[in-house]
């Protein structure tokens, strides 16, 4: 009897989160997906902005009021974090695609850099937003 006649074996499933100690590279990989999903929602908010703009002054003022509310600002802050993270880590992915950056030390250092860049860039944008009266 050949192997093909047997029922297929249970395939390993991704992700095996429970069996690994957390590494920073693992955290940065998961964060890439999480921020991507957050930015998906952000793009829908951007679409709502465009629709409100086309609808007229009242709709636009309503939309700006919503985003300017404490909850709206919190969402925008989260989106800023997500954007800078996904940007930096996305460039890291492009570097990987070119065949570089896989050495353990490099990968760990790049993870730290991406998280640090995210914090610094987000802070910078919100300080600028406060200074130009965008909040």
């Amino acid at each position, binding site marked *: 009897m050949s192997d093909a006649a047997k029922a297929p074996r249970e395939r390993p*499933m991704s992700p095996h989160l429970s069996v690994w100690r957390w590494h920073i590279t693992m955290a940065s990989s998961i964060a890439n997906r999480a921020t991507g999903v957050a*930015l998906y929602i952000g*793009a829908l908010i951007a679409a709502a902005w*465009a629709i409100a*703009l*086309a609808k007229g002054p009242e709709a*636009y003022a309503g939309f700006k009021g919503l985003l300017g509310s404490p909850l709206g600002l919190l969402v925008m802050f989260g989106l800023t974090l997500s954007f800078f993270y996904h940007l930096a880590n*996305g460039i890291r992915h492009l570097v990987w695609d070119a065949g570089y950056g896989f050495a353990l030390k490099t990968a760990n250092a790049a993870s730290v850099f991406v998280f640090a860049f995210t914090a610094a860039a987000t802070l910078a944008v919100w300080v600028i937003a406060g200074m130009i009266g*965008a909040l």
Partner: protein
Amino acid sequence: MVSYRTPLSRARGLGAAKHGVTHWIGERVGAIALVPLTLWGVFAVLRLAAGDYAFATHWIAEPLNAVLMVLLLGISFWHMQGGLRVIIEDYVHVTLNKSALLVLNLFVCALAGALAIFSILKVALAGGGAF
């Protein structure tokens, strides 16, 4: 569901055998385009957040702003459709659920993207006002 097709028959015509690396390269080129476009987008959001409706309509009527915004929205919706597609394919294994979510993802991105781009063009070409 029992399938009587052999593994070879199922593999034939899929993946690289069918499309080569066009899809893979397309995803990367889209991502590269989004680097400058989204950085410009942050700048745009800051300016728009500081301004009112009249400012926004004048700003978007500027050809460069309108074109960059359309490109930013179009490529973003394309990129995120591909991104969520991979996530669905990774985590949802029941064929019907997976197919339904993939179609939903595509439709949401296409609809939201088309609405957003049409809205930008309407304001850029005809000025603001009711639909």
